[in-house]
C-alpha cells in the first residue's frame, strides 16, 4: 500500500513530479509511481526497504555503494536501484540469495576499513552503516586489518560545532554532494583516486579554513559518525524530539529539537518543514547555546533609577511596581504619555497581546514594532500598489523562476537557507540580476549561468528602478494583456506617461546611479522577456528616505511585465527577523489593528471594542522615532519594550540614549541585559523560543508552530508576562494557552479567520490569507485579482536623499549583515559563532585606503554629522571607491552612533543605508565608545546588585 509522506523516513532519492504514472512490479507487488521515480524510492514508498548507503532522499542518486543492487527481469547484472528509473511493466526483485550475498560482500569490504568500535562510537544507535550491517546480516569480516587502511586517519576538530573523523569515513560522497546540491557552496571534494580517495574540505584544508559555511548539511547527510555534532559526541544520543520553528531570520526553518530530558542536544533541520525542506544554516542548526547562557536573566528586577543596583523581586512585585509607575506617569502627564514596542522575535500571540495591552490597559495607540526600522516601507508600498502588505510567493516558487532579481538583499548571508534554494535554481540555468552597491556572494555562485550586477550608488534605488521601467515601457516590453485585465487603467496611463519621460532613461539616470545604460537595458530586457521574472528584496530597498517609493517601483515593474499571480514570479520582501511579517500582521503599528485594519475606521473599532470591552482611540499613536522625540520634549515618559534592543538597533544612538534617559519608567522584557535594559527601571525575564508555545510567520506568510521544548528559565513564557502586567494595570486578560490567543486573532482578523492550532497540526503550516475563500491558506497571492481590485501603478519620482557626500564627509557608508551573526548579536554573540565574526569592521576600497594611508587592521575613526566611532579597517573591493561598509552586530562598535535621523518619507523607516562619512586613521576608541565601555561595566555591576560610582551615559 502506498505510504503517505513521512518526513522521518528516508526514501532514498528525491521525489519526482510528473503527471505520467508508471506501474511496475516489485517483489510481486503492483506499484504505481510518477515517471522518473527511482526503483529505490518506488520500493520505499511501498515500505519495501532496499538496503542503501550512498543514497538519501535529499540528494540526487549517485550509485557508488552498490548496496541497493536489485535484479530486474530482462536486464543484465545487478543494477543499482537508486540510479535506475522505473519503467512500465518492469519486474524487480529486491531480495534473494544472490542479492543477499552480494550486499554482504559489499558491507564486508566497507567494514574491513572501518573501526569496530560501535559500542563507544558517538553514532551508536544512529548509524546507517551499523543499520545496514544488520540489515544484510553481516557476521564476519574475512580480510582483517593487517593490510592498508584508513583507521589512523586524523580527526579535524577545527569547527566549533562538529568534528570530522576521517577514520570513520566510507567515502560515500554524501557530504560532498550535500555541500554542492543542498547548500551550493562546493566547499568539499573527494581528493585522490581509488583507495586514496578521501573527503577534503577545500584544498586539503581544515574545515574552519575552507569555504565551509557550517550549514550542517554534510553532518546531516553523513551515514556514519564521520561528521558528527560535538554536542552528541560529548553528551550522547538524544532520546526524544519536538518539531519547532527557528527564531533567527525570516526564512522560518522547521527544526527537530532533539532532547535529553529538557536539554537540547542538537537542532536538526526538519525535512517536513515547508520553508526549509530539511536544510539549515549555521545559526539555526548550531547557535542555540545562548538559550542556556550564563547571562540569561532569571528573575524579575526593579530599581527606581538607572544608577541604582537592580533588586530581584517576585513576579507579582515586579508587575505591581511597573503598573504603579505607568499609572503614576499617566496621571501626571496624560494618557498618551506612555507606549510600548512589540518584538519581531516574539510569537504572533505575544505580539498581539502587547499591542492589545497598549490599546486597552494603556488606553492609547502608542504601539510600534522593530519592523518600523526594517520593513515598514514594504507594508506601505505593497498595500498601495498590490493591496496587501506581504510578499506574493512561497520560497519554493523560485524553482520556477527564469530570471531572479535581487535588490538590496544578501540572501546567502541574511537568509542562508533560501539563498541555497536560490543558488540551486541559478545552477539550473536561471539568470541573475543583482542591484546592490556591494558585490554580494550570490554573484559568486558556482556554475552561475548569466549575471548582471547593477552596482549603483547608495541612495539611488528609485532612479535605477525607474530606468529599468523606462526601458520596459518604451521598448514594447509591457505585458499589455495583464495590464488591461488586472490593472487600473487611469493609474497605468499616468505612470506610462511619467516613466516614458527621457529623464527616467538609463542614459539620463546614469549620472545619478553610476550604472552604465547598456547594463540597465540588458537587465530590463532580461527581466521582462526571459519568462518568469521574480524579484526578491531586502533592507537595501526599505532603509532609505525613499524606501516606500522603491517598494512601489518594484511592484510597478512586476505589474508592467505581468510577473504576478503564478509560480516563479512575484514581489518578495526578505524579512530580517523571524517574525517581522507576524509582528506587522498582529497590529503592532500605531495606526493599524491586527490584520492591517485602520484604527480610524469606526466599524473596525466596533469589532475590537466589542471583543476587548474597551473604547479604542480612533487616532494613530506614536511611531518609535516619534516616541524618542516626544520623550525629549518631555511629553512621553513611560515605555514597555518586549524583545527589542532599540538602544543598539535604532539609528543615531546618542539621540536614542538621551530619549531613554529621559523616561521615568522603562520596562524591558528580554532574555539578557541588552543595551536598552541598561536604561530600564523594570527588567522582566524573557523566554527563548525553546521555552514557549506559539507561532511565527515567515517571509512567505507561512504561519509555523513554535513548540515548548523546555520550561521557561524564569518560570513564565513571554505571553504570561504580558498577562501579568496587564492584570496589574487593571485590564485582565484570560488565556490558558496561546492557542486561545490565536482563536481570538482568528475571530478579529479576516485574513486569519481560518487559522487554528488544530489546523496547524493537521497541515503543518499555513500561508495566510486563510479564511472561507482559502481554507487551506494561500501559497501564491493575487492569482485572480488584488485585494484592492485592480493593481495600482504608482508614480515614483526620484527625490535624492538629503544625506549627500561633501568635501568634509566625502564617503558614503552603507550597512549590512554577516552570515554568522544575527541582528544586534545578542544571541549569536553568546555562541561559538564568535569564531567567525568577533568584531565589526569597516570595509574600505583599496583606492580610498591608499588615499588615506590605511592598511588592513588599522583603527579607523569614522565621522558623520551624527557622531563618530572607531572600527578596524578591512580592505575590500566589494564596493566601488567612495563607498564604505560595516555591520552592526556588536554594540561596542557604535555603528548606529554615526547613522542619522533621516528616514523614509511615508513610514519613518530610518535611512541606515546612506550616511556621509569621513574616515581617518586613529589610535584610540571614540569618546562614545569609551563612555559605552564605562557604562557597560557599571551596569554589569548594578545587575549583580552592587552599587557603583556614577558614570555619565
Amino acid at each position, binding site marked *: 500500500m502506498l505510504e503517505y509522506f513521512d518526513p522521518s523516513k528516508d526514501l532514498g532519492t528525491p521525489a519526482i513530479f510528473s503527471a505520467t504514472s508508471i506501474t511496475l512490479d516489485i517483489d510481486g507487488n503492483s506499484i504505481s509511481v510518477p515517471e522518473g521515480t527511482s526503483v529505490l524510492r518506488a520500493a520505499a514508498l511501498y515500505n519495501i526497504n532496499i538496503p542503501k548507503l550512498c543514497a538519501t532522499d535529499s540528494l540526487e542518486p549517485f550509485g557508488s555503494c552498490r548496496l541497493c543492487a536489485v535484479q530486474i527481469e530482462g536486464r543484465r547484472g545487478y543494477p543499482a536501484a537508486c540510479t535506475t528509473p522505473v519503467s512500465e511493466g518492469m519486474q524487480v526483485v529486491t531480495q534473494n540469495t544472490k542479492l543477499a550475498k552480494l550486499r554482504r560482500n559489499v558491507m564486508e569490504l566497507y567494514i574491513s576499513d572501518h573501526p569496530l568500535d560501535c559500542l563507544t562510537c558517538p553514532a551508536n544507535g544512529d548509524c546507517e552503516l551499523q543499520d545496514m550491517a544488520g540489515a544484510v546480516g553481516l557476521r564476519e569480516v574475512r580480510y582483517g586489518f593487517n593490510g592498508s587502511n584508513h583507521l589512523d586517519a586524523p580527526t579535524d576538530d577545527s569547527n566549533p560545532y562538529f568534528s570530522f573523523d576521517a577514520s570513520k569515513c566510507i567515502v560515500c560522497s554524501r557530504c560532498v554532494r550535500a555541500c554542492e546540491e543542498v547548500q551550493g557552496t562546493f566547499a568539499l571534494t573527494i581528493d585522490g583516486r581509488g583507495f586514496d580517495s578521501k573527503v577534503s574540505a577545500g584544498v586539503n584544508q581544515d574545515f574552519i579554513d575552507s569555504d565551509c559555511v557550517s550549514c550542517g548539511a554534510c553532518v546531516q547527510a553523513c551515514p556514519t559518525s564521520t561528521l558528527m555534532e560535538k554536542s552528541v559526541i560529548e553528551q550522547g544520543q538524544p532520546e526524544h524530539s519536538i518539531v519547532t520553528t527557528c527564531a533567527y531570520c525570516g526564512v522560518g526553518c522547521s527544526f527537530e529539537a532533539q532532547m535529553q530530558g529538557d536539554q537540547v542536544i542538537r537542532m536538526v533541520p526538519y525535512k517536513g518543514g515547508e520553508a526549509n525542506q530539511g536544510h539549515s544554516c549555521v545559526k539555526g542548526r548550531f547557535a542555540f547555546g545562548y538559550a542556556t547562557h550564563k547571562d540569561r536573566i532569571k528573575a524579575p528586577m526593579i530599581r527606581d533609577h538607572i544608577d541604582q543596583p537592580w533588586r530581584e523581586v517576585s513576579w507579582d512585585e515586579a508587575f505591581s511596581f511597573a503598573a504603579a509607575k505607568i499609572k503614576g506617569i499617566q496621571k501626571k502627564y496624560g494618557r*498618551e504619555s506612555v507606549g510600548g514596542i512589540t518584538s519581531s522575535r516574539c510569537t504572533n500571540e505575544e505580539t498581539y497581546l502587547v499591542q492589545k495591552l497598549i490599546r486597552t490597559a494603556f488606553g492609547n*495607540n*502608542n504601539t510600534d514594532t522593530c519592523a518600523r526600522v526594517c520593513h515598514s516601507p514594504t507594508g506601505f508600498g505593497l498595500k498601495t500598489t498590490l493591496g496587501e502588505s506581504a510578499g506574493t510567493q512561497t520560497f519554493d516558487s523560485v524553482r520556477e523562476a527564469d530570471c531572479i532579481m535581487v535588490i538590496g538583499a544578501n540572501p546567502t548571508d541574511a537568509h542562508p537557507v533560501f539563498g541555497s534554494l536560490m543558488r540551486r535554481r541559478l545552477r539550473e540555468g536561471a539568470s541573475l540580476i543583482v542591484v546592490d552597491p556591494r558585490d554580494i556572494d550570490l554573484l559568486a555562485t558556482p556554475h552561475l549561468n548569466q549575471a548582471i550586477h547593477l552596482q549603483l550608488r547608495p541612495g539611488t534605488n528609485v532612479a535605477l528602478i525607474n530606468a529599468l521601467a523606462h526601458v520596459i515601457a518604451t521598448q514594447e516590453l509591457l505585458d499589455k494583456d495583464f495590464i488591461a485585465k488586472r490593472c487600473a487603467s487611469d493609474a497605468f496611463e499616468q505612470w506610462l506617461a*511619467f516613466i516614458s519621460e527621457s529623464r527616467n532613461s538609463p542614459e539620463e539616470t546614469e549620472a545619478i546611479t553610476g550604472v552604465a545604460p547598456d547594463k540597465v537595458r540588458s537587465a530590463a530586457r532580461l527581466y521582462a522577456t526571459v519568462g518568469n521574472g521574480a524579484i526578491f528584496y531586502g533592507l537595501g530597498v526599505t532603509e532609505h*528616505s*525613499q524606501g516606500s*517609493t522603491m517598494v512601489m517601483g518594484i511592484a510597478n515593474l512586476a505589474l508592467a511585465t505581468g510577473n504576478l499571480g503564478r509560480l516563479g514570479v512575484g514581489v518578495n520582501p526578505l524579512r530580517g527577523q523571524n517574525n517581522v511579517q507576524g509582528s506587522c500582521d498582529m497590529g503592532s503599528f*500605531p*495606526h493599524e489593528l491586527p490584520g492591517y485594519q*485602520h484604527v*480610524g475606521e469606526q466599524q473596525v473599532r466596533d469589532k475590537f471594542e466589542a471583543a476587548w470591552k474597551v473604547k479604542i482611540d480612533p*487616532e*494613530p*499613536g*506614536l*511611531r518609535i*522615532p*516619534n516616541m524618542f*522625540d*516626544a520623550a*525629549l*520634549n518631555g*511629553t512621553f515618559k513611560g515605555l514597555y519594550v518586549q524583545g527589542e534592543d532599540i538602544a543598539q538597533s535604532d539609528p*543615531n544612538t546618542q*539621540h536614542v540614549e538621551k530619549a531613554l534617559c529621559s523616561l521615568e519608567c522603562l520596562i524591558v522584557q528580554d532574555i539578557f541585559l541588552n543595551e536598552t535594559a541598561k536604561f530600564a527601571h523594570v527588567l522582566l525575564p524573557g523566554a527563548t523560543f525553546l521555552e514557549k508555545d506559539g507561532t511565527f510567520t515567515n517571509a512567505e506568510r507561512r504561519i509555523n508552530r513554535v513548540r515548548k521544548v523546555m520550561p521557561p528559565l524564569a518560570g513564565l513564557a513571554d505571553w504570561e508576562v504580558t498577562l501579568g502586567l496587564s492584570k496589574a494595570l487593571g485590564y485582565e486578560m484570560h488565556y490558558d494557552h496561546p492557542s486561545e490567543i490565536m482563536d481570538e486573532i482568528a475571530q478579529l482578523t479576516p485574513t486569519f479567520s481560518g487559522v487554528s492550532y488544530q489546523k496547524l497540526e493537521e497541515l503543518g503550516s499555513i500561508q495566510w490569507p486563510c479564511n472561507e475563500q482559502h481554507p487551506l491558506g494561500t501559497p501564491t497571492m493575487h492569482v485572480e485579482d488584488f485585494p484592492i481590485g485592480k493593481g495600482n501603478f504608482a*508614480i515614483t*519620482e526620484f*527625490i535624492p536623499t538629503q544625506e549627500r557626500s561633501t568635501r568634509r564627509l566625502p564617503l558614503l557608508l552603507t550597512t549590512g549583515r554577516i552570515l554568522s551573526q544575527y541582528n544586534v548579536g545578542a544571541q549569536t554573540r553568546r555562541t561559538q559563532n564568535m569564531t567567525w565574526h568577533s568584531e565589526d569592521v569597516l570595509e574600505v576600497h583599496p583606492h580610498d585606503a591608499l588615499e588615506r594611508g590605511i592598511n588592513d587592521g588599522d583603527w579607523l575613526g569614522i565621522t558623520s*554629522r*551624527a557622531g563618530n566611532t572607531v572600527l578596524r579597517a578591512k580592505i575590500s573591493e566589494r564596493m566601488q571607491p567612495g563607498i564604505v561598509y560595516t555591520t552592526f552586530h556588536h554594540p561596542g562598535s557604535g555603528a548606529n552612533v554615526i547613522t*542619522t*535621523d533621516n*528616514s523614509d*518619507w*511615508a*513610514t*519613518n523607516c530610518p535611512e541606515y543605508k546612506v550616511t556621509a562619512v569621513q574616515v581617518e586613521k586613529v589610535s584610540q576608541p571614540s569618546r562614545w565608545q569609551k563612555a559605552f565601555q564605562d557604562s557597560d561595566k557599571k551596569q554589569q555591576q548594578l545587575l549583580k546588585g552592587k552599587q557603583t560610582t556614577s558614570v555619565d551615559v
Partner: protein
Amino acid sequence: MRSAQQQLIHMVNQIGENNQHSGVESAAAFTSTHIQKFWARSMKQDIIQHLNNGGQGLSEISIAAIKKL
C-alpha cells in the same frame, strides 16, 4: 541633528516633495490625508501649532496640507 519640531517640519515637507508630481493641490491633499492616517494626535497638533506660529520652514505643499487638517 534636528529638534523634534524641525523633524516634524522635515517629515511633512518630505511627504509633499515625494508626491509633488501631480501638482501642489493634489500633493497637498495627499499629504493631508497621509498625516491624518499615520500621524499621532500630538504630532498633528504640533504641526498645526507651528503653522499658526508662522510656519517657518514649511513648503507650499505642506502649508496647504496642514490647513486641510
